[in-house]
């Protein structure tokens, strides 16, 4: 490791004591680069969701004489879903703290609670979907319902992937311990899980609360 003052004063580096972030220290370690790359993925995922939100907002009143949002959505169920996912996100943070201290029992325990709460969320969502489709309010009924099932279903699919990922990480931690590459994956998982909660905040506000205003 060269000191800052010995850094070559050519090309893009300024030399001297100022760190320009332009690479004279060499690349960052994997423990920085990998989660940062995953952070970029999560942000692009949010861009994807913004397109689904935009189409939902455009089509929200295109009900084709079918059921409107006021008749379909149950705020109590949404409240339970919201709490489940929020607490799940919180517990995921606790799992990260336990993992940082290489505490196997607490890490596995908190990850299990995270996954169970995510499962509660997903079950309620699927119950709601099944109920709506049973009432003839499926995605083919109107443009509004197509947009609704695409947006909320896409979030549900993400949660499903997250649940599979949580299970995989529990198995990997159990089998391989708290090695650096396992910790990187765990950090990416927590970023993913927190991001899903952020997207859910937008969904319950725009779709369920604003959609059911009197």
């Amino acid at each position: 490791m060269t000191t800052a003052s010995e850094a070559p004063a050519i090309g893009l580096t300024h030399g001297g004591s100022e760190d320009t972030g332009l690479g004279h220290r060499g690349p960052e370690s994997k423990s920085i680069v990998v989660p940062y790359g995953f952070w970029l993925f999560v942000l692009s995922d949010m861009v994807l969701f913004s397109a689904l939100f935009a189409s939902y907002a455009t089509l929200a009143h295109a009900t084709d004489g079918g059921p409107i949002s006021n008749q379909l959505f149950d705020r109590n169920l949404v409240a339970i879903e919201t709490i489940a996912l929020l607490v799940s996100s919180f517990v995921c943070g606790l799992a990260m703290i336990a993992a940082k201290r290489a505490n196997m029992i607490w890490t596995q325990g908190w990850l299990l609670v995270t996954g169970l709460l995510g499962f509660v969320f997903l079950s309620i969502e699927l119950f709601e979907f099944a109920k709506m489709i049973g009432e003839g309010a499926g995605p083919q009924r109107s443009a509004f319902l197509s947009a609704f099932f695409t947006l909320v279903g896409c979030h549900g699919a993400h949660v499903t992937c997250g649940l599979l990922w949580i299970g995989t990480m529990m198995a990997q931690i159990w089998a391989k311990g708290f090695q650096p590459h396992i910790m990187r994956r765990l950090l990416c998982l927590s970023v993913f899980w927190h991001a899903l909660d952020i997207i859910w905040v937008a969904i319950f506000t725009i779709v369920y609360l604003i959609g059911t205003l009197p």
Partner: protein
Amino acid sequence: MTERETELLNVPPGAPHSNILSETGSYIIGLALALILTGVSFWVASTSVLWGPGVAVGLVVLAIAQMGVHLVFFLHITSGPDNTNNVLALAFGVLIVFLVMIGTIWIMAHMNANMGMSPELTNLQMQH
């Protein structure tokens, strides 16, 4: 420059803070704030005390506030120099999200208003 200083120059997003009190505290504060904001959101949407047309705007503001809480207390995005890269990426993401959402809603609303189409068509209803 020592190894330790090098490590401090960047942190990955979502990494817990350095000591157990402050990191657990961060999650607990975040959970409490998020619960409060969620509760206020559901209350605002249910009550008839507030001025009707303002409720939707208030709900959006509450949602953005809660997203901020999640970013700061769960994902640990801070304004510190070790977080510059994370913040810049986030700022770009937010820019694109707002361009896509506000741009779409704006254009579609004006198209509906200006094209002079019948209500059935402007409503984008599916025709059988």
